[in-house]
């Protein structure tokens, strides 16, 4: 239990008659890269939003970073980072201003923020863009910045919702390097993706179909189980059972 | 053509899915008409009057009776000292205080020094000038009677006829005004916001990459608002006729044609605004401020254009609603023949075509 930073049991979310997330149970270990796969409309984003405290679960159990997602969602929020599918930093703020804002919100001191901003910009090779308005950055840079913002306050867990959508392969590669750096520092990464090569980078992946988790294991075990060479075929075999289309 | 129809359908779905907005669009004209008609009416009726009468003689009694008999005024209070006048205005509901001079009847007959003060609350100038006007009217009638009684020489008797609106109902004035306001609001504001929204969300590019010509995309956006406006126009007219008894004295066909022209103009204006700004916030503020304020204030709806300084009269000439409202008054209430509104028709037509051309040109240059 100590090691399990995310734990759910029969977690369910209904919108009226529609069950978006249907009794899912799983756990994620500390410092793990956990891949959360599924076709469009399978319920990935809804599940993730429940874990982040953005959406109230209908039933079931769930803890994130040791806090109950039903009753302690604000405590959960102190310990997580989140990067949404839609780019959602403030485009009309400069790079350093976004970092300062989110650092400030998580209660970091001004001095601490300034030091950390310098370090992060250095690591990203963004020193020159420090004072650039975010809206004039290229997409790949925005995504990297967005990730840095989401782990700026050193959360226990970071949730990434399709973080590399629309980004070129080189930048995606760099992005994954940033993810590994984060896990090295003990941050757990919970990531949804459509790219099967990215699924290979995960320690463990779960595959959701129609609101349920149909498979959950390491990429290697899954490939063995489904007797294929790559994750793409695994995914295809599982996901084609889906009956519902995009919501 | 089929594609065009499906675009229009999409726009209708868009609008009808947002029930709150649709409700407001439909209810807005009704609420405006009711507010203008019942709540902020400028008609004077049973205004409470307080008196200070140190004379208490035949003449003052006669005048009091005249006021009491008038439907405009009701005497509610007799003051005992002039010091109470301020109090009355501060705390009471009294709109007019009449103060007679001392020995009124005596002075009236012999010295010509008899005087009546009509005191109103100047912090409400509209109310004040109106009440003073009505009260002076009653007093001049009395003066006229005296003249006749004493066979005064050089009496000019004037017969007054109130054309088109003998009861001076305010509805005759505000109904055309509200029509102008609502149509501009819905067409221009909604269209501009709807187009800019697509720009802001980035979906405009998707639409533009479809095989449909850009002009049709814009038209498809305009069609739902066009139909809504026609619905609103009908609501207003029905309310006007059946609730406020405003006549449609003129030719309904021309009235509708005029309104369609105005709606087209408003749509062009909305399109123009949408080509000028990039955010919904700006579109809303520009159409809200740049359209609503001038209509409310410079179209003659509330304040007469004649009383404005010359420069504002010129500015009001470029406010399309001003011409529409004028033409509606003539066509609908005065019931004049259509040739008397040729000027307004022409001005509106020129404005509409001009706006449409400018906005299409703007739209194209932006696309390239």
């Amino acid at each position, binding site marked *: 239990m100590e090691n399990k930073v995310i734990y759910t049991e029969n977690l369910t979310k209904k919108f009226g008659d529609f069950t978006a997330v249907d009794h899912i149970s799983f756990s994620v270990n500390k410092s793990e890269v956990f891949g959360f796969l599924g076709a469009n409309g399978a319920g990935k984003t809804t599940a993730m939003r429940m874990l982040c*405290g*953005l*959406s109230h679960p209908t039933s079931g159990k769930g803890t994130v970073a040791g806090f109950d997602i039903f009753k302690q969602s604000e405590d959960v929020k102190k310990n997580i980072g*989140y990067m*949404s599918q*839609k780019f959602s930093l*403030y485009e009309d703020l400069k790079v350093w201003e976004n970092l300062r804002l989110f650092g*400030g*919100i*998580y*209660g970091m001191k001004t001095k601490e923020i300034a030091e950390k901003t310098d370090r992060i910009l250095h690591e990203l090779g963004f020193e020159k863009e420090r004072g650039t308005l975010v809206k004039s950055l290229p997409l790949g840079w925005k995504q990297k910045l967005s990730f840095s913002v989401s782990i700026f306050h050193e959360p226990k867990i970071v949730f990434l919702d399709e973080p590399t959508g629309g980004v070129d392969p080189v930048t995606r590669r760099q992005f994954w390097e940033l993810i590994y750096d984060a896990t090295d520092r003990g941050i757990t990464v919970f990531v949804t993706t459509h790219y099967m090569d990215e699924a290979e980078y995960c320690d463990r992946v779960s595959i959701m179909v129609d609101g349920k988790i149909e498979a959950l294991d390491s990429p290697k075990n899954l490939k063995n189980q489904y007797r294929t060479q790559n994750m793409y075929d695994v995914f295809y075999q599982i996901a084609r059972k889906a009956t519902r289309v995009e919501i | 053509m089929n594609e065009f129809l499906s675009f229009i359908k999409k726009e209708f779905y868009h609008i009808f899915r*947002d029930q709150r907005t649709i409700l*407001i669009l439909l*209810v807005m004209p009704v609420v405006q008409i009711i*507010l203008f008609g*019942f*709540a*902020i009416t400028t008609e004077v009726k049973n205004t409470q009057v307080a008196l200070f009468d140190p004379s208490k003689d035949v003449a003052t009694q006669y005048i009091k009776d005249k006021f009491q008999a008038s439907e405009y005024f009701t005497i509610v209070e007799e003051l005992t000292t002039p010091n109470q006048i*301020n109090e009355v205005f501060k705390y009471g*509901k009294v709109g007019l205080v009449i103060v007679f001079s001392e020995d009124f009847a005596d002075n009236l007959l012999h010295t010509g020094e008899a*005087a*009546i*003060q*009509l*005191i109103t*609350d*100047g912090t409400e*100038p509209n*109310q*004040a*000038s*109106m009440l*003073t006007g009505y009260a*002076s009217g009653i007093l001049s009638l009395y*003066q006229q009677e005296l003249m006749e009684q*004493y066979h*005064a020489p050089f*009496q*000019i008797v*004037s*017969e007054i*006829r109130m*054309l*088109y*609106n003998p009861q*001076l109902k305010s509805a*005759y004035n505000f109904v055309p005004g509200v029509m102008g306001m609502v149509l501009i609001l819905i067409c221009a504001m909604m269209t501009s916001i709807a187009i800019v929204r697509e720009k802001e969300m980035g979906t405009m590019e998707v639409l533009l990459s479809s095989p449909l010509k850009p002009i049709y995309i814009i038209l498809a956006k305009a069609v739902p608002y066009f139909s809504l406006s026609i619905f609103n126009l009908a609501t207003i007219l029905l309310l006007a006729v059946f609730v406020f008894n405003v006549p449609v004295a003129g030719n309904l066909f021309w009235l509708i044609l005029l309104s369609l022209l105005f709606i087209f103009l408003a749509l062009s204006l909305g399109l123009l605004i949408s080509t000028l*700004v990039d955010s*919904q*916030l*700006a579109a*809303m*503020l520009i159409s809200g401020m740049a359209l609503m304020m001038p209509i409310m*204030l410079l179209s003659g709806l509330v*304040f*007469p254009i004649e009383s404005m300084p010359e420069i504002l009269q010129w500015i009001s000439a470029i406010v399309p609603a001003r011409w529409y409202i004028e033409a509606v*008054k*003539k066509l609908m209430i005065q019931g*004049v023949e259509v040739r*008397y509104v040729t000027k307004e028709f022409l001005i509106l037509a020129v404005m509409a075509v001009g706006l449409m051309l400018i906005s299409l040109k703007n739209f194209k240059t932006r696309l390239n």
Partner: protein
Amino acid sequence: MLQFLIEKEFKQIVRNSFVPKMIVGMPLLMMLVLPWAANQSIKGLKLSVVDKDHSTFSEQLIYKITSSGYFQLTDVSPTHTLAMKSIESGDADIILEIQDDFEKNLIREGLAHTMISANSVNGIKGGLGSSYLSSILIDYAEELRETYGQSAGGVPAGSIPQFNIIPQYKFNPHLDYKVFMIPAIMVMLLTIITGFLPALNIVSEKEIGTIEQMNVTPVKKLMFVLAKLIPYWIIGFIVLSICMGIAALVYGIFPVGNLFTIYFFASIYILVVSGFGLLISNYSNTMQQATFVMFFFIMVFILMSGLLTPVASMPDWAQKIALFNPLKYLMQVMRMVYMKGSAFGEMTPQFFALCAFAIGLNVWAVVSYRKSS
């Protein structure tokens, strides 16, 4: 935490290409233009005269009318029918018809008839216009009596019973519309700027998606709402100060009462409208929706605020509705302070009403703001 959020709001406001211009431009524009337009007194009415008499008297009369300033002579028609055409085409507002033998009748019979026909589609214009015109006629008759009184037979002028009508306007002796409209325009500006901007601000964060990034942080609801309120509170003060500056410099209008009373009431009022804006934004999903809901309420608020006609002269049901109109209270306060010089003590009902609105709306706004669905 609040400091960082407020800093963000200010940077966004300053960087917006439109908002700063509006905060300065709109008060300038409205304060410089509207007071001139807002004048309900009738001047320069277009007069068409049908003079069938063509006598010295009739010409004197026409001259007297045109030099009064209330009327401008647009045409002299030979017949009533022609004059009516001018009314129909909009070239004339009012017709004065002078009968033939006007002069002769006045001298021989002591009485002559005229007819005034006013276009009364606009009842105020028709009513006031015809009463101005008939009072000029009465004045002219009086002049005639003074000049010819003794020689025209009948009674000597002095013995006709006469009285004077003296209109007196309390608190605003010259019936100045500017001093009436300017405080009202300030209230409208405050309402529009500090009401719309916060409403649209939150909804735009919803539409862009940045609000989700906020909702997933531990930021407190109260903090978030406060961070939205405070900048608009300051903007409200800027707007109000610009307005009062223009009122003083351009129009020479100063509040009779205490300046601080105005700021004090405004500071509560801004919280009321901003809170209302936030509340609307909480219940709206798109800017279009928020705009229209705001627009609807602000329009009703403005119309029912006593802007043009006093609330007290509205029918009872409308007065009851107006009790829930925050604009009404500030409108009263502004006019009372500007024109009557009322002190705080005389406006305690307005104070309590505005406080109640401010607390009620803002508590509601904080409670209804949902960080999760």
